[in-house]
């Protein structure tokens, strides 16, 4: 347990080496990875999304595929196609880029809904089905999808209901002036990724994922999650609250997060930290709230503030 945690910290440190000042994002990405979930990054281009994913893949010794979503991308370009093999006289499945370890799905809102849904389905099921044939995608399987902020032109916004396929949604945001200065200083002849070392291998990651499942969650914490989730459903600014899937997602994320923090049990702090990242994008706000520029994150924070943290327990 402790040993793995040390290596996890190493991974984080390793990635921080190239991604400057984004420790939160790194930790959250790793949380999603260990929880067998996926991340949606919503950001303007050029803040280092690709770099983050590549650094992650390199550190964990995983394969890295990148799918650049364009308006003319077809579902089969993601999942792969069956091609007739003349010698074998039969169709043979050729893997698409989605079948891999760490996948960067860049600018997914630029492609057609059909292709989007192919991606989301693969993420959800951890498998692809082509011509009736299902191909399992092995762990580690981690998709980091990025999308440009909705205001950009020429985008197909992801249906809100689809968003809850992502365990975590986050923003990288612009670096601070200081961080940017560091970046410029580091930029030299070689690509920074080249200098990164590998810290773990794929088997380690799979093993860790199994360990994450064993992280203990106390009934009082479960109750806490349930209370938070239920509050989203009755909040006046929310049209559609968090689904049970959201509650499960929060618990899984919390387990992974606790694991990264070196604990084998979840504390309320984990939930409070993660809830805005895990729950906010699952909310569908009322029109009034949207008009008032209310955001899901703020609502979640409000709810956290309203719900009592479990601090006592009945021992018998």
């Amino acid at each position: 347990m402790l040993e793995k945690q040390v290596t996890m910290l190493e991974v984080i440190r390793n990635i921080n080496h190239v991604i400057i000042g984004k420790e939160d994002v790194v930790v959250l990405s790793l949380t999603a990875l260990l929880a067998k979930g996926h991340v949606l990054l919503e950001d303007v281009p050029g803040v280092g999304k690709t770099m983050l994913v590549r650094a992650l893949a390199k550190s964990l010794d995983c394969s890295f595929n990148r799918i650049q979503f364009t308006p003319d991308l077809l579902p089969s370009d993601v999942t792969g196609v069956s091609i007739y093999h003349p010698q074998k006289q039969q169709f043979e499945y050729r893997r698409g880029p989605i079948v891999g370890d760490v996948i960067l799905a860049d600018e997914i809102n630029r492609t057609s809904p059909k292709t989007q849904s192919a991606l989301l389905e693969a993420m959800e099921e951890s498998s692809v089905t082509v011509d009736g044939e299902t191909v399992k995608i092995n762990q580690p399987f981690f998709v980091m999808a990025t999308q440009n902020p909705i205001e950009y032109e020429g985008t197909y916004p992801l249906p809100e209901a689809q968003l809850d396929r992502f365990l975590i949604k986050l923003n990288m945001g612009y670096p601070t002036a200081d961080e940017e200065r560091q970046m410029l200083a580091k930029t030299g002849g070689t690509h920074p990724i080249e200098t990164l070392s590998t810290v773990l291998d794929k088997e380690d990651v799979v093993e860790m994922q199994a360990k994450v499942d064993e992280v203990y969650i106390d009934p009082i914490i479960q109750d806490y999650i349930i209370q938070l989730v239920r509050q989203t459903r009755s909040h006046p600014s929310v049209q559609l609250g968090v689904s049970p899937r959201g509650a499960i997602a929060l618990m899984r994320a919390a387990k992974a997060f606790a694991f990264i923090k070196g604990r084998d049990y979840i504390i309320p702090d984990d939930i409070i930290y993660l809830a805005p990242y895990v729950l906010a994008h699952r909310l569908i706000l009322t029109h009034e709230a949207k008009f008032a520029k209310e955001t899901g994150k703020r609502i979640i924070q409000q709810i956290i503030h309203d719900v009592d943290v479990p601090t006592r327990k009945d021992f018998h």
Partner: protein
Amino acid sequence: MKKKMSKAELFLTFLLYFGGLVIALEWFHPIQELLQTDYPMIFVVYALFCFLLTFMQTSVWLSLSLKMTGLLFILNQLFMPSPFLGANWIDRLTEEVNHNFIAISQQNWYHLTEMFQIAMFLLLIALMSYLLYFWLITMKRVFVYVILSFVFVTVMDTFTLYQAHYAIIRLFIVSLFMLVLAHYLKRISQHQLTIQLNNWFSHVIGPLFLSLIIAVLIGYLGPKSEPVWPDPVPFLSNVAERFGGIVNANQRAGYGDDDSELGGSFIQDRTPVFQADAPTEHYWRVESKDYYTGNGWERSTELQFQELRPGEFELFYSYYGGSYQEATVYYMDGFNFDKLVYPYGFSEVEQAQIHYFAHDAVTGIIEPRSASGEFIKEPIHLTYHSPGYTEEQLRRANGGVSGEMRSLYLQLPEELPDRVTELAESIIEGHATQYDQALAIEQYFSQADFSYQTNRVPVPATGQDYVDQFLFESQVGYCDNFSTAMVVMLRSVGIPARWVKGFTSGDMIQDLSTDDQELYRYQITNSHAHSWVEVYFPQIGWVPFEPTIGYSSSDILDEEAGSFESNLPEELNVDEEQEPNQEVDTEEEQEEQNSPIEPVEQNQNQEEQMIEGDSEQQVESSINLTYWLIGFITVVLILAIVNWKKLLRYYLLKRKTHFKHANDFQRAYWLLIRLLYLRGIKRGDSSETLSDYAKKVDQQLGSTAMSELTTHYHQLIYRNDQELVGKPAVFQSYQKMVDIVLA
């Protein structure tokens, strides 16, 4: 004071504490008025002593024992004749304590002795020195204390005779000063600054004084509006009366004309009224009143003055025929008193300037007037006789009382409770003659459990009879209570009596005796104002009686005739038995009467008496037990107050042995949080996580102990790791935290 204070800071702290003392002294003034003590300086000195001791922060035991020694020393000097810590000293003290604890346990506040009150007050001062040190110096909180002081002083001003006119201004100045100082000191310790001595005056003290002066001037000179609310006193005293409280501003002071509302405490007014040169001590009569209203005395008739020339004086009381005496009365300036004070048996008066005397026959008021009808404040020479009747004559005095006498001197209010009459009847039972009956009622007060005191005397509630309250409820009071009660009881059994006002013999201030004549100069002050009883005996006239405990008058009987009988109930008993025409008591009654004297019988009857609950031994032992119990509790309390930190620590760590169960750890952890709350580190709200709170605590206390402990607690409740509880590491971090919190 853990960290070393700079000299300037120490000085400012001292100033702050001194301000606390000054305000505390403002509390003393009204309290002294309430207690009516004559030793104001002693309180101030003792307060200074206590405050200084506390400020020096010597060891708790040393300062505590010094303070207690000081307290006992003062009590000894004031109240005890025996030398400090002498042989009888402890006994006397024990007796005092016993008496007062009984009074407290029975809630008879008016039975508390002055010594006890003063002891309590001194104790309060000692405690206050600690409390103020904590409030002002440790916590640097001034505001609550200041507000309380204002409230206290204004309430005292409203409801008592105390005038807080300047006290308010003084309070305002001192408290403003203290508030600024406390704030300044707080800031300094918060930001760990040091006071720069060079700009200290121009930056701190200067502006402070300037703004103080301006504020006071504005406040003092500025226009003040009239009170918006009506005076609350009548309303509140009305309410208080309804609840039977003692609270009342109605206090009597010396000789007054209005006796229609008796009751309440008696203020000692030492203004001299007159001086008299007389050979013996005797009472000085002024007037009598005849109409009892249930609340006090009034005159049933208007004053009808007749003019009497000095030469026209006959014997004012014909039954006086004893030896001839002379006295001279000198009226004092500075006290407005326009009536003649005269001894019983008074017959002649000499004063060149007196043109005539205005004399009212019913009340006996005599006013010496000049030709222009004004009161004359010149020395008056009086001639009088000592009483010439004997006890035998009084016993034999018999005969009818005229109708006029009846209507005047047997008058009683209709609302007089029956139990007063019943009591009077039971007292005179077995006494045949009017004289013996009167004597029995006079003696009743000293036989029964009555006591004399001038303060904390209750005022009758609305509709309550003054005499009834005194006889059956309070049983404490001064001359008015005793004399009125006696008159009312006499009247209720058909003996004509009236209520007399005057002065006692006063204090002897000079011995003017010569070889062949005894003569003393007495000074009579307003506090010597007195009231007593006159009983009418047919053929003899009005004979004075003195029911008030602690007073005796030689006027009542000629010495040879047996005034020695006065206050000895046993002798009275003997008298009764000797009385020839008295009915012989039945044996049973005799036994009852004798029982307190004969211990053997008492033992035999013990069982019975135990049931009745009046066995003296039993009372004694239960008193002793209460006394010891209260003493023990007091000692324990003092120890607890002195060692509260150690005790708390012990209590908190005692749970070590109970740390077996997860609940114990949980409870201990939350107890700690409550303690931290008391230390001012509050958990934000119930949505703040424990780890955030622990970080906050550690940051403020400069430690990591709370986070450590919280991790353990987390493991307990979020990981359900109940085996962890017994581990020494958990207890160690708990202990560490307890020590930090109590530091």
